């Protein structure tokens, strides 16, 4: 029989692991967003400022698809849903909806110059978020969607640990799959056209490429990846609401991740996500141990560190931590 002290120590240990697992899970979600943005901007030069919008569409589509019917309760307005579809179907629907939204946004805007594309997509994301805030019958408005199931259901004292482990395992498997899949399509003649569009779209047209088609494809695929990240986010947090999780700040974080990690290569985007979200996670952890006078300023110190890191990198290593490699053809 375990002594009480041992049991307590174990609980603390798994508590740390659950916490670390949360860090890894959220980092993976950011990494998927960063991979989507890196595909659009790092490879193709399309500056998407509406990442949060595609992320939101994926998260809400998934939540509506997979959540069981909400039992009637006072104060909760309810939302569209109760379909209780399998999780994989939820993932496919999330990707399809976000990908479709991205393609529709891209149709009129992707021909615009980079700065105008940024303005148009930023506006799109805010429109989407405002709709989510106000379309109560579908999204439950400001309260958001609750009761999203875990990936697997566990019970008992280890449930929290097992849930965290499942989230990390599923996330890591998806990230690995995306890494391999994206590597395959990007290091191909198709991917070469994308890099050419980034370098000089006019010249790419003048050697016979239908650049519009490539840009449309890339926007849709990137959007679908952001939708997949939304699905994973819903399953990890079990609860989504429009104001915080899908604010423009999410988009800005993903930019920083790709710039810091290194654009135009897959490992850079992933590394950037783990580093930049790591700083946020650390700042939350430090809150418990920091001296009183520092506690309230920690989030701001984090922002200062991120800002300084960004400036230093842009000056001394503009390619990011991991730089794009030269492709030597044989």
């Amino acid at each position: 029989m375990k002594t009480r002290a041992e049991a307590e120590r174990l609980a603390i240990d798994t508590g740390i692991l659950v916490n670390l697992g949360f860090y890894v899970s959220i980092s993976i979600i950011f990494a998927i967003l960063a991979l989507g943005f890196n595909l659009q901007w790092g490879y193709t030069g399309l500056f998407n400022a509406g990442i949060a919008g595609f992320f939101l569409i994926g998260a809400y589509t998934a939540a509506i698809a997979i959540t069981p019917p909400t039992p009637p309760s006072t104060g909760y307005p309810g939302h569209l849903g109760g379909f209780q579809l399998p999780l994989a179907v939820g993932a496919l629907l999330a990707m399809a909806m976000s990908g479709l939204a991205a393609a529709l946004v891209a149709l009129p805007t992707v021909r615009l110059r980079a700065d105008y594309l940024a303005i148009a997509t930023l506006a799109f994301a805010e429109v989407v978020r405002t709709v989510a805030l106000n379309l109560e019958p579908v999204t439950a408005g400001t309260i958001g969607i609750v009761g999203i199931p875990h990936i697997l259901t566990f019970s008992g004292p280890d449930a929290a640990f097992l849930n965290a482990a499942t989230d990390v395992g599923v996330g890591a498997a998806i990230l690995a799959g995306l890494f391999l899949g994206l590597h395959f399509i990007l290091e191909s003649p198709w991917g070469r056209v994308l890099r050419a569009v980034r370098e000089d779209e006019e010249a790419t047209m003048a050697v016979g490429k239908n650049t519009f088609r490539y840009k449309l494809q890339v926007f849709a695929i990137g959007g679908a990846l952001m939708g997949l990240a939304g699905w994973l986010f819903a399953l990890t947090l079990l609860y989504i609401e429009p104001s915080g999780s899908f604010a423009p700040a999410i988009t800005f974080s993903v930019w920083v991740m790709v710039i810091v990690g290194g654009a135009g290569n897959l490992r850079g985007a992933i590394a950037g996500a783990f580093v930049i979200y790591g700083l946020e996670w650390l700042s939350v952890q430090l809150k418990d141990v920091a001296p009183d006078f520092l506690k309230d300023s920690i989030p701001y110190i984090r922002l200062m560190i991120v800002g300084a890191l960004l400036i230093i990198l842009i000056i001394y290593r503009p390619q990011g931590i991991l730089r794009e490699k030269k492709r030597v053809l044989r």
Partner: protein
Amino acid sequence: MEHREILRVGRVRKAFGGISAVDDCSLSVSPQSVTGLIGPNGAGKSTLFNLVAGLYQPDEGEIWFNETRIDGRPPFEIVHLGLTKTWQIPHELRNMTVLENLVLAAKHNAGEHLLNLFVRPGQVRRDEKMWRARAREILKLTQLDALANEHAKGLSGGQKKLLELARALMTDPTLVLLDEPVAGVNPTLAANLMDLIEKLRQGGRTFFLIEHDMNVVMNRCDRVIVMHQGRTIADGTPASVKANPLVIDSYLGG
């Protein structure tokens, strides 16, 4: 206009804001010729090239390439018909290697279609291998083979001009529009480049080039067209154009 001309531009007009860059311009280019296009700065020569290549849409007029009307068509379609252009200021793909710059320009490469990567992997491999070999041939021809795996941004100005031509040749064009191919290129290299163009012409290609180097224009072109204020003011053999008072007045100077 003679119907057998490879390129026919008929009464084309293009204005930017209130300024007519190309104004009621008509001209034609004969197959397998080296035709020069000269004229003072701002005459509309580069704009005309952009109109022919489909990068700009004309406000009025028609452009025919062989039997096909090409005005209003997107640039990639025009390239596929066999018409390519290069730029006065090289548009090299900076962070890609010289070899990548060339292989990219191949006309039909199965791997450039996303779906083919999954459903026709064999064809993708074969095409890529074939085009890399072809790119290496063209690099030899343009004396860039030693730089195949260098980033294009590392090339000198003259080498970038060669890269422009090499990349244009990868599209297997029948008509190449060259915007100042030897500007900024040292005399030896320029001579080599023009020799190469002559050799390619004998192989069946047609060149239409903007050039300010009168040596090149007078000695290398079969025919010279002169533009001034958006329209053609002279068209004929180099000797006849050189003697034309209108041309002397507006461009060559007395």
